[in-house]
């Protein structure tokens, strides 16, 4: 059975894209069915480490608590800055007022953890379904605990958010409390999307060398120390999954600097150059600043290219990082893209990325898991990028895989991580060839 036979059944869902950014329109296979992805709560796993003064309180069920602990299992030895307020029968049966219960839990938590300066009340599937108003709760509790603790809310529920959309929801909750940048203030740069500290520092050094004086980061390492935002703000997205945050920033007058996402030599160069142009930096200076990083990255990637060139890869929908990563693997390592699946395709933010895709790349949005796995089995790519629930079963069928979650948990942005990123894909292939058992 060829992949096309299977596609045939989905022909009705084969929609032509009407977005103005992509011309000519590229067909997108849109699917609905079982999705094998995490919900937005999972973002807490990295967000709580990134923002060191923040605590995340999920208002949900035992399932939510179990999800967080299963996804974060490896980090159990440190007391995390997140917890779940598990709703019980009496909360649902109206025997107690859920808002009163929440007050009690929050007060106890803040007593126990006086180091918390920002508390996120995080909505879940059950809290959304029973329409527990967390915005109201945040407002009420905030009135009590400000200025010591700022209390915000967002939803990481699986009925509304997929995996990395949880970070999008969290950051967009921060935007309204960012200080205002005066209308007449000089332009400032804002990097949007949580990056590992080491990568953030690399970018800040490069911008400083280029002469961009004021650079803020969202999220800031200290959630009470947010950068300003206003009409003078020019922002660069560091992650491709921040649609809501981008809209919230534009609502406050900020303007997006359009660029490729900073993966690989091309992506990182384009991202830095775009900032340079937006700030009127002399082109020669920009080139001079980025040249050493470009050279280092190119050298390091050259070692890995022979291992990946010509290899066929399929991405199952997971983190929304799929499109820019696929572009990097295609353009800089010579890999062949079979199917690039993504939970949600932000056409405007990804327009320049998609332009780079070869004509035969199958682009899919959403998921019908069993049909997609049928396509993987028919395509037999050399490597399949997928979630933790699918990796071992596919390996069991003789298909080499890469866990997608590692792409979210590893430093992969920028020049000096370009080879590390490529290595994440090369290692499973090398291992497959090494093992003689």
């Amino acid at each position, binding site marked *: 059975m060829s992949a096309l036979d299977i596609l045939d059944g989905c022909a009705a869902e084969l929609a032509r894209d009407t977005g103005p950014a992509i011309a000519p329109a590229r067909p997108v296979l849109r699917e609905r069915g079982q999705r094998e992805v995490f919900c937005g709560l999972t973002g807490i796993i990295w967000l709580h480490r990134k923002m060191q003064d923040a605590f995340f309180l999920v208002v949900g069920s*035992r399932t939510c*608590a179990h*999800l967080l602990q299963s996804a974060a299992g490896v980090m159990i*030895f440190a007391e995390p800055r997140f917890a779940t307020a*598990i709703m019980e029968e009496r909360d649902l049966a109206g025997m107690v007022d*859920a808002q009163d219960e929440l007050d009690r839990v929050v007060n*106890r938590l803040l007593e126990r953890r006086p180091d918390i300066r920002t508390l996120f009340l995080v909505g879940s*599937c059950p809290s959304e379904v029973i329409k527990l108003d967390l915005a109201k709760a945040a407002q009420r509790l905030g009135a009590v605990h400000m200025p010591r603790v700022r209390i915000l809310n967002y939803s990481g529920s699986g*009925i509304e958010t997929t995996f990395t959309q949880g970070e999008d929801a969290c950051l967009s909750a921060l935007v309204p409390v960012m200080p205002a940048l005066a209308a007449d203030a000089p332009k400032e740069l804002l990097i949007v999307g949580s990056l590992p500290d080491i990568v953030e520092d690399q970018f800040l050094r490069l911008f400083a060398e280029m002469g961009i004086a004021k650079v803020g980061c969202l999220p800031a390492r200290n959630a009470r120390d947010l950068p300003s935002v206003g009409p003078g703000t020019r922002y660069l997205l560091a992650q491709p999954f921040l649609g809501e945050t981008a809209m919230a920033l534009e609502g406050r007058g900020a303007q997006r600097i359009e660029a490729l996402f900073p993966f690989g030599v091309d992506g990182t160069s384009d991202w830095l150059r775009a900032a340079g142009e937006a700030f009127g930096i002399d082109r020669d200076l920009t080139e001079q600043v980025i040249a050493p990083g470009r050279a280092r990255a190119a050298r390091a990637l050259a070692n890995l290219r022979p291992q990946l060139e010509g290899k066929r890869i399929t991405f199952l929908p997971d983190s929304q990082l799929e499109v820019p990563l696929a572009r990097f693997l295609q353009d800089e390592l010579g890999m062949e893209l079979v199917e690039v699946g993504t939970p949600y395709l932000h056409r405007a933010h990804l327009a320049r990325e998609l332009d780079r895709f070869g004509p035969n790349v199958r682009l899919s949005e959403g998921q019908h898991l069993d049909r997609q796995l049928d396509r993987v089995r028919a395509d037999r790519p050399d490597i399949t990028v997928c979630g933790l629930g699918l990796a071992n079963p596919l390996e069991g069928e003789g298909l080499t895989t890469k866990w997608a979650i590692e792409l979210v948990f590893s430093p992969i942005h920028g020049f000096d991580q370009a080879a590390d990123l490529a290595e994440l894909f090369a290692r499973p292939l090398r291992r497959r060839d090494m093992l003689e058992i």
Partner: protein
Amino acid sequence: MQLAVWTYEGPPHVGAMRVATAMEKLHYVLHAPQGDTYADLLFTMIERRGKRPPVTYTTFEARDLGKDTAQIFQDAAREAVARFKPQAIIVGASCTAELIQDDPAGLSEAMGLPCPVIPLELPSYQRKENWGAAETFYQIVRTLADKSVVREPREGRPARVNILGPTALGFRHRDDLVEIRKILALLGVEVNLVAPLGATPEDITRIGQADFNIVLYPEIADEAARWLEKTFDQPAVRTVPIGVGATRSFIADVAELAGADPTPALGDTSSRMPWWSRSVDSTYLTSKRVFIFGDATHAVAAARIAREELGFEVCGLGCYSREFAREVRAEAARCGIEPLITDDHLAVEDAIAAAAPELVLGTQMERHIAKRLGIPCAVISAPVHVQDFPARHSPQMGFEGANVIFDTWVHPLVMGLEEHLLTMFREDFEFSDEAGASHHAAHSPRKASVQAVSEAPVEDIPAPAMADDDGTLWTVEAERELKKIPFFVRGKARRNTENFAAAEGRRQIDLETLYDAKAHYAR
């Protein structure tokens, strides 16, 4: 609302998944939003299964609410049956779907599916994982068992037994089963069925053919076994064969019900644990203080082994499952201690810190607590992590299980002679606290400072002559002497001395007080 950081048990539908994943040719259609699929990784990553759990998640979204979530359920069920061709399906709701009240049972009944449908009611906001597994197994057995089965007369044929309880993601279930089969073979007892692990729905139909049942894991199988007792008049063996003594009782119980001679099984020459425990090298294990926490079955078994087979002193005992708390209370009474019945891991952490044991036996949660406190630890019960699904045969049950337990529990402890040397030559610069036991670096406490010698581990208050909470004072001299005591007993020595000083009303802890306390607590 209950504030939780880590939980011992997942929601009840995860228990149902453990049953479904253990079985063959059974499929679970779970009405659930995206994200609940995280549970797959428990099986594929933690247990390293090479197959997807047989679960279809309906994946409804916010925009479907109040519109066609019921239709989504029916489509998913129809597709799953067509694709996987199961002999039976179980249907149910996760916590979110429970709230939207789509009634998967009624919906699937109305569909006229070509296989039996077993509806599950698992109240997510009241119950937890083990209960969910037990209820699921019970419903499967109750629905599928062929009640018209007539047992052949016992004469002229070997006794037949069902082994009930092993599931996916169970702590050493795979290996325990091997040991149980070994014992049954020695007794000449035939296995009619093992369930849920490895059983198909068709297998379950002939569950009534066995003469009796073995309830290997009561948390999962007790409910079903009680129904079988009533329905098919099958008695049950409820002795859980963890430890040498319990294995002997188990063999006797099975032999009695089977009318078999227990001698061949009791005489298993590979049972080494009794001699390992009696050999003089083990003398130093005497009255080691252990803290035990886990599911009720494993915790109670561990307490018996600790007391009767290793000569330990049980200084703490508890479980996270209220359903089986009675057994734990009874065992705690035999140990002369108060039981700890809680699913709040912070309460367990406090109890361990207060008890200052020399060894912790627990779940992955206690492993991390023990690591933080610098106390040796062995894992005895679910929930466990990936490293507790070993590649090698590593049972807990039967005589081989007891051998494994001896090794696993003794291994993290400082060895006898080494313990003496550490006590005698504290000044040796290589006997620093950071070094810990020579053979097991992972269990040593974290490094407190760059200074290698005589540095207190992190849990100690290092500053001498400082008032502590009770206002008592350690003299510089007494503090220095305290540091000569090896780190693995120092916390206890400090606490004992302070309690003694408080009881005696002494305002200052000097050398005299330290040694008076030592004499007071001498055992």
